[in-house]
């Protein structure tokens, strides 16, 4: 369960996040939808305590990232925009590294990797060095790495970036399974179909502010549009960034 209230963050003159508030409940998939540069990544970085907010409040299962950074990192699983695998390590070693950094025991990591390898279908490349992996394989390793410690809350920044159709389907399937297991999932995206297909709640962010918030149905009703895309354009008030 994530609660964000009145979040502000600027870099010099640029107001990256300008009063964002939303909620992400357990057992639900929350989509942060917005054009490039809307402030999605900055918002997520504040959630996983990499950036301190200038103002505002964040609570993740009651914890505050600015004060309980270590504790929050233990309960979060993050797939950041930059996947950054170690190319001289195998997929398994990449995942193990993160398991060890979370203080897990060897045996626990081993059995967890075995589970994830089945769920994410990684058997073929688990023991190969990640150099030369396809985007799909990379995302799978990045997800496995983020999920190795079985976090309650999952944050994904543009998870389907660069994925082909089959990989995207597999990813969506996996995200839905997380929701069914009662996790709270927040993903950022600028892809309309993704939101429509996956998300229970949609938070539309534009220019650092929340333009609209609700279920897909509610957003359609509110904008009086037929499709999510039209609703999106109407709600953020411009077509800027849609094609990016």
């Amino acid at each position, binding site marked *: 369960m994530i609660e964000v209230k009145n979040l502000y963050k600027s870099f010099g003159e640029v107001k990256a996040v300008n009063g964002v508030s939303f909620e992400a409940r357990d057992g639900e998939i929350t989509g942060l939808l917005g054009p490039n540069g809307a402030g999605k990544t900055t918002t997520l970085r504040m959630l*996983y305590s*990499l950036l301190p907010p200038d103002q505002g409040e964040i609570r993740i299962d009651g914890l505050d990232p600015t004060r309980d950074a270590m504790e929050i990192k233990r309960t979060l699983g993050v797939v950041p925009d930059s996947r950054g695998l170690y190319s*001289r390590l195998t997929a398994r070693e990449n995942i193990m590294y993160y398991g060890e*950094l*979370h203080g897990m025991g060897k045996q626990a990591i081993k059995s967890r990797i075995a589970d994830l390898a089945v769920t994410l279908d990684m058997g073929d490349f688990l023991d190969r060095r990640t150099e030369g992996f396809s985007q799909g394989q990379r995302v799978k390793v990045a997800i496995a790495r983020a999920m190795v410690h079985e976090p309650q809350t999952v944050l994904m920044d543009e998870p389907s970036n660069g994925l082909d159709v089959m990989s995207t389907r597999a990813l969506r399937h996996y995200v839905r399974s997380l929701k069914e297991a009662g996790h709270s999932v927040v993903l950022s995206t600028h892809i309309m179909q993704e939101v429509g297909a996956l998300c229970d709640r949609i938070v539309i962010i534009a220019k650092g502010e929340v333009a609209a918030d609700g279920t897909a149905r509610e957003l359609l009703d509110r904008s009086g549009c037929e499709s999510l895309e039209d609703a999106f354009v109407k709600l953020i008030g411009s077509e800027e960034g849609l094609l990016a």
Partner: protein
Amino acid sequence: MNGLSTVFKKEVRENIRDRRALFNSLLLGPLLFPLLFVGLMWFLESAEKERAEKTLELPVIGAEYAPSLIRFLEQQGTVIQPEPENPEELVLSQEVPVVLRIRPEYAEKWKEGLPAPVEVISDPSRQESNAPIRKVKGLLYGYGQQIGALRLQLRGVSPQLASPIMVKDVDLSTPKSRAILAVIFLPYVLMITAFTGATHLAMDTTAGEKERKSLEPLLINPVPRWQIMTGKMITTMVFAMASLALTLVSFRIVLPYLPVGAFGMDLTLGLGTLLNILLIISPVAILAAALLTLLASFAKSYREAQSYMGLVILIPMIPSLIFMANPIKAETWMMGIPLFSQNLLIGEIIRGESVTITWYGLSVGSTLAIGLALAALAANLYNRPKLIFSSS
């Protein structure tokens, strides 16, 4: 501290698989420098020998004016060559190192008992002509002395009266203390090795990680940032130390093949000496790792980091260069200066001098203190969000 050791283990594993890291840290220094050293020594020695043993071929102008001088030169093993057309040209174009010109008035002055003029035509700015020039001048001087003594004797004067002072060389240097080149070269090489051994790792674990975009996900793990940085720095230090140890071992293997006899050196680095040197130089590895990590953390990419490193590598050279230009006697206060003190101490050890515990303590202590201070600074760098993101 678990996080620290996890980071350390992973960095070691990853970098052992990296050919570039292995090459830079474990091969380049240990192989290149000792070979360079031996090659240099061979070259110097054989060049010296060649010059010393070569018969002197001397073109002479006006040989007919001084037949007895010519005979003297020939008796001393000089091969007299016929008069060249344009002697100055010949010397300038480096075809011959030196030409002797006997002036026409030579015979006349000789008879009058006045100094008879001869000219040694040469270009002393050419290093390789120094030996023949010295030889010709020596011969001429010897001839002059001999004739002068004869003349005095003829007049009933003891030639000893003309040499009021007798200069004698008393050489007190032991074979060890004559190892000047090695004394300068070894600390220099070791100092550079400490830095080159650390460079690649320092860049790869910081700027490299940023460039590959693996830093952000890494920092999301519940491990304090100083532990992550320290784990990385310890890996860098270990590689720098390994580089140093290997370089020393390879010097140990290579030195017996040196033509040391000719230089009068005793350079059998015994195990004790090796460990001694390693003890002295280890703090430099720590200092280098911390300094390079600190600098590389500010770079956004491996390439940018590389451009800083080019300048940093000059740092370990400075004390050696000062030392080369102006060899000074080691004193206690100098032991507090990192890099400089190691230069002096290793020099002392090779020369076979005993080094007091105070000097060890000062050198190791001061270098370690500065190294750890830099490390502490570097360890907290990633608390600044600006340094984490390569873009945005």
